[in-house]
């Protein structure tokens, strides 16, 4: 472990010992951390994983002693480099946060002061270390260079809102490194970022780690990120660490049923909806403050028996440094994947919805901003078309234009069953309105918070199915049952429901009529993996029963692979590549797809060599000449790509690519020298 040169003997950079922490709510302490123990060696990267509410972030904040006023440490210690953080005076704590440890937060936008220039904020970090104004300014410039910002002068002069999320997170990291900390706590540092930007930030953290030898505590719900970044990992559940070991050991030989459940909920190893349903974890996390059973996971565990209910599980060593708190660690293999369900997923032969030459141009302060450029797409009955691309590539605009929320430009047309439909949803015939429905990304925003679930569903049933009275009541109950919502949930308002249940209501609403095509705009991105799995299973089953088509927008390559029959890759409002899921994942690919796929951190440890996407997505208001991707393309042919816009060519039957290169040329692997990265 301690292979770093300047370690102070065997004193860990961070040691958390049996930490018990509670939040006082209305005078009653509610336990959140219930005996968390782990340590991070100097120079080591340690990951914490678990579903939301398991105490990951609370642990991270406790390590820095950033705690809300109602937090009470009820027991245990937090030792940073041998010093007890919980016992420090205010001054010692300030000193500690200034020079020994620092933190990078989830949302860089909230971590920065919007009213001050970047330069002022970065320089301030050096000013408090005692540097003069001029020295601090110079240090700020170097700090930005250290986080690989090419043009520090320009960035120092900007305000936070003028920078992209990825760039801002680099600045925050630069600020965190100002005092050369021995410990860097990263709380979901890449959660809000695109996969391509995430990959760049992670590369940066990895480089900085080998440069500074700082110990890293990384909190992430994305298991792929943990796998690629960390040496060891702790799996948290209900305020306790239930399994710990090296990432290879834990991810390849999970020994706690919870770890097993988490890993299996994620669509991986190329599993498809036609292969099997996804694993789910039944039940919910115990509420904070409730008394925990002897084994914290007993209520959701498929292996639970009497001993689990009566005895606290001991620490069972699996291999060197890999342990689990489970009575049945050796029976873990008995947890079987869901049985193969005979899902046929019949895809019809007729194209039910067809977009021809659909463009959408927004007018912004007198400028034309082409958000969609001549999109041709067809949907077959019961087919899922996955839509991927970075933020700003036009995925949502395409969805909203299809639905009639945005009016497409003149010249394009949308057909339903061979009949032209009106551009605006409000002008459409009842049948067309019923045919197009949507499941939104954020169920909080998509459900009227003053309406009960019953009213939401009832209104949708009357409008979309055209039935009233007792018949409508019955339909509402049937719908709720199909979505596995109980009668009790029907009388609740959205805020009383969990994220997964809210998304079920939203799906029920979309299916109230008899939709032909449902647009799913990242419906699971806000959900924990086990809940995501349940929602994906529900969507797959509904499709199988109702033969509905989906336009499925997502950032998650695993999810899109699981659910989609075909995949379209968008960039700057254009479809760059379109093919069946197998074709997309087998290649050859459009260079943009190639870069996108390589950016995904893999849970299985079999990452493809990464193809960096340099720079940011250009503004659609001012697209590059020739091929719009040529400015970031690793296969660019100058003199051709920057002048001529490529035609869409067929790479194989039903597999098209908007690129000058042929299938043979695209099959030649590209190699990168480290200089280009």
């Amino acid at each position: 472990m301690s292979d770093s040169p300047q370690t102070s003997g065997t004193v860990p950079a961070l040691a958390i010992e049996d930490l018990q922490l509670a939040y006082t709510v209305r005078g009653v302490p509610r336990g959140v951390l219930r005996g968390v123990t782990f340590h991070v060696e100097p120079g080591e990267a340690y990951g914490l994983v678990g579903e939301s509410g398991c105490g990951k972030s609370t642990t991270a904040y406790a390590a820095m002693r950033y705690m809300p006023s109602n937090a009470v440490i009820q027991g245990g210690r937090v030792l940073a480099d041998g010093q007890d953080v919980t016992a420090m005076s205010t001054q010692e704590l300030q000193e500690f946060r200034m020079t020994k440890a620092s933190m990078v937060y989830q949302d860089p936008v909230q971590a920065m002061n919007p009213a001050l220039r970047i330069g002022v904020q970065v320089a301030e970090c050096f000013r408090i270390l005692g540097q003069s104004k001029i020295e601090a300014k110079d240090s700020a410039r170097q700090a930005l260079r250290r986080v690989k910002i090419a043009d520090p002068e320009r960035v120092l002069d900007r305000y936070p809102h003028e920078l992209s999320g990825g760039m801002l997170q680099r600045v925050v990291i630069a600020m965190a490194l100002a005092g050369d900390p021995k410990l860097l706590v990263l709380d979901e540092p890449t959660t809000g970022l695109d996969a391509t930007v995430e990959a760049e930030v992670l590369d940066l953290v990895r480089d900085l780690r080998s440069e500074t030898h700082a110990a890293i505590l990384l909190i992430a719900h994305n298991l792929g990120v943990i796998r690629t970044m960390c040496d060891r990992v702790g799996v948290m559940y209900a305020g306790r660490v239930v399994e710990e070991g090296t990432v290879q050991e834990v991810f390849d030989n999970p020994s706690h049923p919870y770890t097993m459940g988490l890993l299996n909920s994620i669509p991986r190893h190329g599993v498809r909806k036609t292969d099997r349903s996804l694993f789910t974890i039944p039940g919910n996390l115990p509420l904070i403050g409730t008394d925990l059973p002897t084994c914290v996971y007993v209520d959701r565990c498929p292996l639970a028996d009497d001993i689990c209910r009566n005895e606290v599980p001991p620490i069972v060593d699996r291999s060197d440094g890999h342990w689990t708190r489970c009575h049945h660690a050796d029976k873990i293999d008995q947890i079987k994947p869901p049985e193969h369900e005979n899902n046929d997923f019949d895809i019809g032969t007729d194209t039910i919805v067809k977009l021809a030459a659909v463009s959408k141009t927004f007018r912004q302060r007198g400028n034309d901003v082409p958000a969609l450029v001549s999109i041709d797409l067809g949907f077959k009955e019961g087919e899922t078309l996955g839509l991927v691309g970075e933020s700003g590539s036009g995925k949502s605009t395409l969805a909203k234009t299809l639905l009639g929320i945005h009016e497409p430009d003149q010249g394009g047309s949308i057909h339903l069953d061979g009949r032209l439909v009106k551009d605006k949803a409000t002008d459409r015939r009842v049948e067309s309105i019923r045919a197009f429905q949507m499941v939104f990304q954020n169920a909080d925003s998509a459900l009227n918070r003053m309406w009960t679930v019953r009213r939401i569903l009832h209104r949708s049933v009357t409008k979309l199915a055209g039935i009233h009275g007792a018949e409508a009541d019955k339909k509402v109950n049937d719908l709720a049952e199909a979505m596995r919502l109980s009668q009790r949930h029907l009388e609740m308002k959205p805020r009383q429901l969990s994220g997964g249940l809210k998304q079920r209501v939203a799906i029920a609403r979309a299916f109230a009529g008899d939709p032909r095509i449902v647009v799913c705009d990242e419906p699971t991105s806000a959900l924990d993996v086990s809940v995501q799995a349940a929602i994906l299973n529900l969507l797959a089953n509904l499709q199988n029963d109702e033969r509905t088509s989906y336009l499925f927008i997502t950032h998650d390559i695993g999810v899109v692979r699981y659910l989609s029959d075909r995949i379209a890759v968008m960039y700057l409002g254009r479809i760059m590549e379109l093919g069946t899921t197998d074709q997309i994942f087998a290649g050859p690919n459009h260079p943009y797809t190639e870069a996108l796929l390589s950016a995904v951190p893999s849970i299985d440890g079999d990452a493809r060599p990464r193809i960096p996407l340099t720079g940011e997505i250009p503004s659609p208001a001012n697209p590059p000449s020739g091929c719009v991707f040529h400015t970031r393309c690793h296969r660019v042919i100058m003199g051709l790509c920057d002048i001529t816009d490529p035609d869409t060519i067929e790479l194989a039957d039903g597999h098209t690519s908007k690129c000058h290169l042929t299938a043979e040329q695209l099959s030649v692997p590209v190699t990168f020298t480290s200089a280009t990265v």
Partner: protein
Amino acid sequence: MSEIDPALNSGNAASSSAAAGANERKLARKETWRLIRRRPSFIIGMTIALIWVVCALFGNLLAPFDPLNFRGDLNSSPTWSHPFGTDKGGRDVLSRVIAGARDVLKIAPIAAILGVIGGVILGMFMGYLRGWFDSVASRIVESFLSLPVVLLGLLAVTTLGNSNVVVIGVVATLFTPVVARTVRSAVLAESELDYVESAKLRGESTPFIMFREILPNVSGPIVVELTVRIGYAVFTVATLSFLGAGPPPPSPDWGSQVSDNYNSIVSGYWWSTFFPAMAIASLVIAVNLIADAVQSVVESS
């Protein structure tokens, strides 16, 4: 196949659990009320306001003398029989202050309610429809707000005549643009939310989306606006009647009492001005205290 919900298994008695859900909502409303009621500003404000409401309802029983026709010594200072003294016409100030509550409490809340209704409708259209309608209406609202309230009120009352109906109409009209602006900004933010888009995708009409979907979600700021407006209405009505544009004489309105008697202050007869003025102040403060309590509870939930 999915997250098994414990509630699913227990939810077999449909009707009883439905009642439980409705009960939960009633509890939430009760909780809001409880929070408002617990605030000291609400208790004090409500006590003062209730005293004036009692005066307004039972003024003729409570007043020791006839507020209009009793004639005693002119400008007699407060005594046991006339605790607030008598005014320059020899009328009992206490009786007139008690009777004056009726006019104010009749006019101000009605004017405020009408103003809020007008403002909600206008603001809802501005915030939801946007576009040219919002641009035009916003400019009109702004030009209205730039004019002095009292001047507009005086102008309207002198042209239209002096009656309670006119005063109510004037105050309501003056409040409409102010309320509209508040409602507009709330609606602007609200109509960005996806449930509005979802309603469009179901083919809902524009009025349905505005008044059934969005309106309940902006009811918080509207309730706050209403309580604040009642306070302003009391003050505006008193100001108008002080300037002679209030309810017509011989009503014992507080504002006209102040204006009738204020020039006798220099002669040392302060009571005939002081007590009606205090009545106005106490009611305005009381309503503002209530508004404050409502606002802090509504905004924190």
